């Protein structure tokens, strides 16, 4: 994935359930889809779908351990999304300062 393009990361994190999945994986690396489904009011199938989307965005990876598939975060792409937000915020601070001086 192109690390300079935060698009897929924003899309992946736009969904509240996926953000909950990210939060759980951050607290407990190596959770299975079933274990995540226990924590959230969502079916295991739905969790599997969300995990696939997080993997597509480069935010999570699967690890096969016997018959289980365990998931952990690979948060590097988050840096691109955070950089966008920090940069956009800094630009608006500058613009709003100019506006205040003008008024």
């Amino acid at each position: 994935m192109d690390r300079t393009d935060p698009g897929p990361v924003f899309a992946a994190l736009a969904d509240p359930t996926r953000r909950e999945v990210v939060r759980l994986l951050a607290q407990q690396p190596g959770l299975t889809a079933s274990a995540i489904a226990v924590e959230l009011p969502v079916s295991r199938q739905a969790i599997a779908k969300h995990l696939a989307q997080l993997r597509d965005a480069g935010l999570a990876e699967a690890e096969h351990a016997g018959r289980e598939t365990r998931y952990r975060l690979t948060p590097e792409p988050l840096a691109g999304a955070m950089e966008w937000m920090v940069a956009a915020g800094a630009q608006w601070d500058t613009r709003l300062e100019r506006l205040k001086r003008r008024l």
Partner: protein
Amino acid sequence: MELHEAMNAMRRETILDAPRDAVWALVADPEGLAEWLADDVELPAVEPGAEGTVVEDGELRHVTIEEVEDQRRVALSWCAPGGEPSLVELTLDDAEDGRTRMVVVEVPLVTLRAVAARTTYALTVAGGGQGADRPQMAVAA
């Protein structure tokens, strides 16, 4: 969690020491925008569908005015070459003592597409709406 955080949007809120019509004059007019938004603003008008460019720190962006609500709100989309297109909403409200509250929300378009089919609704949710009539998006705490 604030709604703009839920949407991965950039949000700024500031109180401007001027009445709303004075601020609006600098928001709803290309020459007004040129005073603060960027170093150079080339737009035929601030009205829906108007297209042009802004240049800031030597970087050019293509701009389209998306929506205008008189004295209250301007929504525009912009994109730097090779960059991520985003939607910007500037919303004005009366604040105390004749001052004006300005809320700026900037959201990558990809986020909006993922969150809501209608950009207008998504923008309202992201931060433009104020008060009890503000639509609420279900967000896991």
